[in-house]
């Protein structure tokens, strides 16, 4: 067990003040950044504000920037970080308070993607071979943690861009073996603020804690649109 220094970049919404708090916590080999923040909240500073819940990297609540990288705090070991550890709210979003950001913009864009199966006729029995599911396995693993939005340079300067996770989910439904809305979905992809705004930095795929590859999904959508336009 050893003492580590954690600097948290904070925002006080009442005074609109941006400031940094410094905390010292004891860390063991298996202490995560989230464990340290919970400890600070409970024992040192009740005003420190952040979101978290599952502690196991699946609910997507505790995304934040740690030592310059967007990460899930519950999966980031203190011992693997350089000191001092600097924790910031996710980039590219408006900050509500401390480490809590407003990502309603994602929910609005997600709704535009029509993230549900669309079919004309009702299905009787569904037969899908395991290999047919492979194409959607990757994009469907998105936990909506917003790390890719924080990492995306395009979204950083242009918030009208629909964003990586969103477009990966669009691709996921487009490729679903039982979905029948290809035309409609390609139209959504072809929107001026959708796939064509992506300039393929690939930062989204690097940032994803679940191995989702939005960059790939987006390039596939571009390719499909290109092929369609040649037909």
């Amino acid at each position, binding site marked *: 067990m050893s003492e580590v220094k954690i600097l948290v970049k904070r925002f006080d919404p009442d005074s609109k003040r941006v400031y940094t708090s410094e905390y010292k916590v004891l860390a063991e080999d298996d202490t995560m950044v989230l464990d340290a923040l919970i400890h600070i909240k409970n024992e040192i500073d009740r005003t420190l504000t952040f979101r978290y819940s599952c502690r196991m990297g699946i609910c997507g609540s505790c995304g934040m920037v740690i030592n310059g990288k967007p990460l899930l705090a519950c999966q980031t070991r203190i011992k693997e970080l350089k000191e001092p550890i600097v924790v910031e709210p996710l980039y590219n979003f408006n900050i509500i308070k401390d480490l809590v950001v407003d990502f309603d913009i994602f929910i609005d864009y997600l709704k535009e993607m029509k993230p549900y199966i669309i079919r004309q006729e009702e299905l009787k029995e569904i037969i899908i071979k395991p290999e047919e*599911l492979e194409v959607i396995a990757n994009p469907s693993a998105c936990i909506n943690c917003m790390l890719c939005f924080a990492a995306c340079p395009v979204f950083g300067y242009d918030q009208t861009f629909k964003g990586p996770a969103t477009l990966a989910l669009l691709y996921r439904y487009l490729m679903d073996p039982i979905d029948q809305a290809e035309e409609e979905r390609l139209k959504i992809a072809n929107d001026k603020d959708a796939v064509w705004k992506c300039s393929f930095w690939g930062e989204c795929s690097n940032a994803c804690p679940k191995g989702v590859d939005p960059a790939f999904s987006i390039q596939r959508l571009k390719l499909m649109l290109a092929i369609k336009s040649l037909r």
Partner: protein
Amino acid sequence: MDKIKADVIIIGAGAAGLRAAIEAARIDSKLKIALISKVYPMRSHTVSAEGGAAAVIKEYDNLDSHAYDTIKGSDFLADQDAVELFVRLAPQELLNLEKWGLPWARDENGKMAARAFGGMSVKRTFFAADKTGFYILHTLFQRSLMYDNIERYDEWFVTSLIVEKGRFKGLTAIDIKNGTLHYFEGKAAIICTGGIGQLYKTTSNGAINTGDGMALAYRVGAPLKDMEFVQFHPTGLPGKGLLITEAARGEGGYLLNNRYERFMKKYAPEKLELAARDVVSRAIYYEIKEGRGFEGKYGAYVGLDIRHLGKEVIEKKLPTVKEIAEKYAGVDPYNELIPVRPTMHYMMGGVHTNKNGETPIAGLYAAGEAACVSINGANRLGSNSLTECLVFGALAGRNAAKFALEHDYLEVNKEEVLNEEKRIFEGLLKKENGISASELIYELKDIMEEKVGIIRNGKELEEAFASIMKLKEKFKQVSVVDKSKIYNTDFIQVLELDFMLDVAEAITYSALKRKESRGAHYRIDYPKRDDEHFLVHQLIYKTEYEPRIEFLPVVITRWQPTERKY
């Protein structure tokens, strides 16, 4: 203060809440559905469910078998009419999700693949890797975006229900983002707020599982049912409590003690590692107590061995097990045992409902883990809870929608709301120089873990009850350090603690009054099941003093209680 009107108000947006919302929304597009959750829907704890969802879909299976397994698993405390309804509606719910795009694992013929699970006599647990809850939650959430008549209130915290003469009429809620209190008028409401894991020190549950909905109902006179039945999952990571899914054993994993023996053969000679969860958890408890555990930094544990399953099974079917073992325990599951120990996992008890999801308060419904129908009785079988959320979420959604179509609004009078505003802001937020909520939460967790855990006795339960009463007194001195109205999690935690204390009271008092051992409720002073006196549900009512217990007979249709053996 703003008033919001909605025909059906749903509290909680996990699997049960979302399923209820979709059902109510599609019954009549003119119905306005308000979906309130203290977190964004995709953060709900359904997301952490791993193993799968049970239903009779395979040709080799039958409804009676699923019903009997569930009833036996419940140690005969489940209501058999409710269980029969549950198993009958279950298949359609899973097939609905299939049509809604849920990527269920498939077999080589392209059909939904099933895996073995504890207490289930055939393979009937359907899954999507070991992230079934994640896929269910996201499929439902994304599907819910289809309906324009579902209005979401994300990150709103419900502080009280408003009931008049036995009929629901509204509630109050804080918009966490700006700290303002609003009130809702509703024709019907459904409580879908999930479990209570945060009452315990070691739990698989997320930080949000604080039993809010149970306390909300309890406070307005709705009884809670079977609150003494708290499930400890056999395989949690020591210290952290994180869940290693039962699917690890369903796929063939072993439990080993420090002599590398599969000790379950002593406790459940036939089903071994796949006995009911209460049986396996107690077995681990005894192995450790008798010195046959491995020693670790978080105390003794037993080993979960999945090495022999091979790389492909682990990668394809148990990726989360691998991830948790590697990231959180620092263990390589291909070559090492995963350290496990029981962890508080699930609440069998909850808001008392009948099989239509109705509570005794007209217009008030409950579904999912927050409710107690009861299909789970004294012990829930793994993979029945996701299905329960779907079946009874849909049912409650449908019935609440019908109720709303047949009834009018009752006006909420301003007085009631102003009192609540005063209680919250004057009584709690503005109080100075008290003790911090976290201090009391630690104390509560210690009491529950040590005295209301896997193995109980009357003396300790009495001590625990007395300590909880003291904590309730002490709660009056709690103050909020953060005085901001905006996104004040210090304040929200105080409100949660207030709820947790009521739920702890109900659990401990119910446990004290059930003088027998059944399912997850094991008392060394009454080590036998006592059908003569306790083949009953316990309803607990809040009173000004000690809670009041009423008995409700268990509904038995076709299966007489017998000794439970695995």
